């Protein structure tokens, strides 16, 4: 409790220093997509989080202009890549002569998948992310080459599948066989890395809503991934973003698809339990 009240004091000070409506414009806006899909962008934090009362989507931290881009699918540049993902979905590849559609029909058959990812895979005996399920399909069902974690077809396909779950609350399982991986992810979240000695928590838990130089820090939620970033004009995978963050601490980063990042993805996803799936979102 003491930590929580300290947090409230620091953010009040930050607000005074910033002046109203600078970086936090539109914080209380409601995200409604295409005038019909209402999204949960603020909700009570899941029980396992000790230092935060309310979790907030990254959308609430962005400027009015960036927020508006996500409120209409025609304006959302991420939708271009969803369209490309749909072309890939129907494209036959590999020795078995199959496409994604051969087994799964339309992508809407995978509604709800994003909300539960990553999850424990019984057969493999480990936690799998969506990328791993996709590559498993490609290798074992289609007889096709694996995609790179950050390759265009991979990110576009995850965007297409995420879109099917849009508006559903994130609900990843952290107990049972997934618990061990979750604990590992939590440890990584609170470990300081790099020459700057920063942990995820230093920015995204202790200082969200403050500015780090010109950047308005969010809570580092991943419910909006893959995210279209205005800075590089393309969709970005979760692990790619993790890598960027760790690089910014001047550390040697983990690799996309590494056991460390899979554990971290599970932990960070669980910190967003209750927020709506937003992918593909628009961020700066």
């Amino acid at each position, binding site marked *: 409790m003491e930590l929580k009240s300290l947090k409230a004091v620091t953010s009040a000070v930050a607000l005074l220093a910033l002046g109203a409506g600078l970086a936090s414009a539109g914080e209380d806006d409601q995200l409604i997509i295409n005038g019909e899909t209402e999204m949960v962008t603020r909700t009570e934090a899941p029980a396992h989080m000790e230092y935060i009362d309310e979790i907030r989507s990254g959308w609430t931290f962005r400027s009015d202009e960036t927020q508006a881009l996500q409120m209409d699918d*025609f304006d959302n540049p991420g939708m271009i890549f969803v369209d490309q993902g749909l072309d890939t979905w129907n494209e036959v590849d590999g020795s078995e002569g199959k496409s994604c559609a051969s087994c799964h029909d339309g992508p809407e058959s995978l509604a709800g998948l994003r909300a539960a990812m990553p999850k424990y895979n019984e057969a493999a005996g480990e936690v799998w992310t969506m990328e791993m399920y996709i590559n498993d399909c490609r290798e074992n069902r289609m007889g096709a080459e694996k995609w790179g974690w950050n390759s265009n077809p991979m990110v576009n396909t995850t965007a297409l599948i995420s879109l099917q779950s849009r508006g559903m609350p994130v609900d990843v399982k952290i107990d049972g066989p997934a618990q061990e991986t979750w604990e590992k992810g939590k440890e990584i979240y609170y470990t300081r890395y790099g020459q700057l000695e920063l942990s995820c928590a230093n920015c995204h838990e202790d200082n969200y809503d403050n500015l780090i130089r010109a950047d308005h820090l969010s809570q580092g939620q991943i419910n909006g991934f893959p995210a279209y970033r205005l800075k590089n*004009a393309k969709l970005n995978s979760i692990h790619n973003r993790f890598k960027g963050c760790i690089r910014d601490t001047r550390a040697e980063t983990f690799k996309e698809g590494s056991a460390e990042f899979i554990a971290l993805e599970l932990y960070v996803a669980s910190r967003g339990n209750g927020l709506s799936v937003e992918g593909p979102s628009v961020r700066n």
Partner: protein
Amino acid sequence: MATGVKPRVKVPKTASAGEAITIKTLISHPMESGQRKDSNGNIIPRSIINRFTCDFNGQNVIDVTLEPAISTNPYFEFEALVPEAGEFKFTWYDDDGSVYEEAKPIAIG
């Protein structure tokens, strides 16, 4: 030769006569400027959409010349007066000679 080019337009299905409606258009296109060089130092040839037009029942609404500095996936949003029911026709002209077309009907109601 640009690949993955796909035009998109958003036009309301109905309007009242004489109403000004908002039209949004987007075409996915790399818009290679012709200024960049590849890893061997050779100039990557220019490949852009150089002209965009919109017509309503044969009458021109806008006619835009696009220049190499326009970024990837050009987006246009503009208003048009709708005096009667009819069809909006959109045309994009590519440097490589391709012409991409899209049409959307609009009713009065």
